[in-house]
C-alpha cells in the first residue's frame, strides 16, 4: 500500500529529524538532530516503536497533511492545536489518521518545536548515514508545500494513548556543571552568573541561542588568549563582550570563546523550547549531582513506554482495575493532564 503524507501546507521551518549522526565529530560535523530529543522518546513510546524513527520537527508553526492510507500518528513537544477532519485531537497522544483524512496542526501555544510522529517512522532518504536534517551543514532541506512524505511500514494498529511529558516548555531553572574552561572564570563571576535573571533572546538558531540580561558581562580572565577547543551542545560560551550563548545541537565542533560551564542534556531541552523572552535561571551542580540527575532523566525517557495511558478508559481493557480508585472519581478521561508539558 502507498503509505504517504501529502503536505498541503507547512510552516517556514519544518524538517525531518531524528537523534542525529554520531561518528563525524572528527570530520567537523556535530551530531545535530532534533532540537528536543525528549520529544522523540515520547512519540516513540506512544506508538510503541524505537526513538530512532524519523519524525517531522515543526518550528513554531505546523502544517496541513493528508494521509494516503491509514497511518498512526503521535504528537509531542511544543503544544500546538491539532485537528483530524475538523475534530480536535489531544497533544502528547497517539491517534489514527485514516486514509484520505486531513490533519491540521496550528501554531505553537507553548514551546517552540512540535513533533509529528508516524507509525513506522518517515522513510525519507539518509544523508551520511541518517535521515535527520543538519541545516548548518546543508544536509537535507526544509519541507515544502506539495512534498509527499513516505511513511515506513507499521506492524501495529494501537492508538489512543497519552503520555505526561517532562516539564520543559516554559524556560525556568537550567542546571549546569563545570567544564574544562570553568577555571578561566573567577568564582564570583560564576556566582553572579547563577544569580542573574536571563531572558531567552530572539537572536538564536540551531547552532546557539543568546541569553539576554541586564548588568555587566561575564568575561573570563584569560578571555583573549585561549586556544580554540572542542565545543559540545549545552556549552555556555561567553563571547568577547561577556554575553552568554548556549550552544545547541548544530553547533560548530570547535570554538575560540571560553565556556563557563555545560548544561545537562535534560535541561538543554528546556532552552530549546523556551519561548522568546521567557525567563531562565542557571543553577550550578557538582559533577556528581549533575551526573545523577541526568541518569535519572535518561531512565525516565527509556521507561516511558510503561507509563503511557489510554486516552479513553474502557473498563474491559484495564489490567490493573483494582489499583484504580474508582469510587472517588479520580480518573477522568476528559481532564487527563495532557497539556501539562
Amino acid at each position: 500500500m502507498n503509505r504517504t503524507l501529502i503536505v498541503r501546507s507547512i510552516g517556514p521551518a519544518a524538517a525531518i529529524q531524528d537523534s542525529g549522526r554520531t561518528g563525524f565529530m572528527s570530520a567537523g560535523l556535530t551530531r545535530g538532530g532534533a532540537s528536543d530529543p525528549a520529544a522523540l522518546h515520547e512519540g516513540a513510546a506512544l506508538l510503541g516503536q524505537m526513538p530512532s524513527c524519523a519524525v517531522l520537527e515543526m518550528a513554531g508553526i505546523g502544517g496541513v497533511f493528508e494521509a494516503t492510507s491509514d497511518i498512526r500518528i503521535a504528537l509531542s513537544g511544543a503544544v500546538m492545536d491539532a485537528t483530524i477532519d475538523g475534530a480536535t485531537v489531544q497533544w502528547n497522544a497517539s491517534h489514527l489518521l485514516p486514509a484520505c483524512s486531513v490533519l491540521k496542526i496550528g501554531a505553537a501555544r507553548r514551546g517552540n518545536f512540535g513533533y509529528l510522529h508516524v507509525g513506522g517512522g518517515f522513510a525519507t532518504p539518509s544523508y551520511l548515514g541518517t535521515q535527520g536534517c543538519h541545516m548548518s551543514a546543508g544536509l537535507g532541506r526544509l519541507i515544502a508545500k506539495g512534498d509527499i512524505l513516505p511513511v515506513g511500514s507499521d506492524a501495529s494498529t494501537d492508538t489512543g494513548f497519552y503520555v505526561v511529558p517532562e516539564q520543559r516548555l516554559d524556560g525556568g531553572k537550567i542546571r549546569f556543571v563545570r567544564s574544562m574552561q570553568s577555571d578561566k572564570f573567577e568564582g564570583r563571576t560564576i556566582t553572579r552568573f547563577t544569580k542573574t535573571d536571563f531572558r531567552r533572546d530572539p537572536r538564536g538558531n540551531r547552532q546557539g541561542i543568546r541569553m539576554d540580561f541586564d548588568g555587566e558581562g561575564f568575561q573570563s580572565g584569560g578571555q583573549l588568549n585561549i586556544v580554540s577547543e572542542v565545543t559540545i551542545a549545552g556549552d555556555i560560551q561567553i563571547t568577547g563582550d561577556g554575553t552568554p550563548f548556549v550552544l545547541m545541537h548544530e553547533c560548530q565542533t570547535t570554538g575560540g570563546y571560553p565556556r563557563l560551564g555545560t548544561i545537562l542534556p535534560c535541561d538543554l531541552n528546556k532552552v530549546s523550547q523556551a519561548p522568546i523572552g521567557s525567563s531562565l535561571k542557571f543553577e550550578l551542580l557538582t559533577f556528581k549531582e549533575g551526573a545523577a540527575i541526568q541518569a535519572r532523566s535518561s531512565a525516565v525517557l527509556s521507561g516511558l513506554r510503561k507509563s503511557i495511558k489510554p486516552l479513553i478508559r474502557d473498563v474491559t481493557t484495564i489490567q490493573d482495575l483494582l489499583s484504580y480508585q474508582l469510587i472517588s472519581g479520580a480518573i477522568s478521561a476528559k481532564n487527563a493532564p495532557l497539556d501539562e508539558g
Partner: protein
Amino acid sequence: MKNLMTENFEIQETWPQIKTVGLAGIIVTFSGVLSEPANRAAIAFLAAARSAEWEELEESNSTLVSTFLKIDLSVHRLEPIIERLQNLVDSRDWLAAPLPSGRTLWRVPTLFGTDRAPQLTEAAELAGQTIEQAITDLSTTSMRVLTIGFAPGQPYLGTLPEYWNIPRQTKITPNVPAGSLVTAVRQFCLFPYATPTGWRHVGVTGFLSFRPKSERPFPLSPGDEMIFDPVTEAEFLKIESSDQSGNGGAQTEMLK
C-alpha cells in the same frame, strides 16, 4: 586527577591535563598554546585511544592541542576511565610521538589575489612582504592539517613563517565563497562553503573539503599536508568550469 575533581579555581600549569567536558566526555590537553609537538601529540594520542577500543567511547576527535573522547559520564563511572587515560598519558612522551602513517600530500591549484581574493595585498602589507614574496611564502610552505573542525571537513593548516602572525580582522567579512583560502595567526583555513570570516581572504581554490554526495565526503585528515600551487586566472577559470568533483584539480601523493 586531583585537579579534575576539585571545585575551586586553581590554574593548572603542568601538561598534559585531563579534564571533564560537562557530562559529555573527557579532554586531554598537551599545551596551553599552539605548538607543532602539542598538535602532533593530540593526533597520536587520539589514534592510541581509539585503538584501545574502550566500549564507553562514542566518538572522538583531535583539536589543535587536545584529544577529546566523547563518553556519557552520566552512564559510565568517571574514576576508572580517568585512571586508564592517566596510564595512557604516562605510557610515553607524547610530544615526541611520530606523525600518523598513511598521510597524504595535496597539491591544490590556487589563484592568489585578484578581485577573486581581494585581501592578498592587505595581508602581505601586514606581514611586511611584497605581493610577489607573499605569494611565494603562501604557495611554497607545506601546510599541515592541524585539525578538522568548525565547519564539516574544514582544515586548520599551519604554520607559516613567524612574520605571518597577523591578527584576525576586527570587522567580519560578511561572505567569502566556498573554496576560499584565508589566513590569520600563521594559519590557513580552507572553507567548505560560503561563510562570514574574520580571517583575510588571500586565495581561491576549487577544492571542497566537504563533499556530501561523494564516496569520500571528508577528503582530508589531521596530519595531511597541503601545498597551494599558484595558477593564472585563465588556468583557474579552466579548472573551475571543468571540475564537477569538488577536487579542484588537486594532485595527491602519499607521504612517508
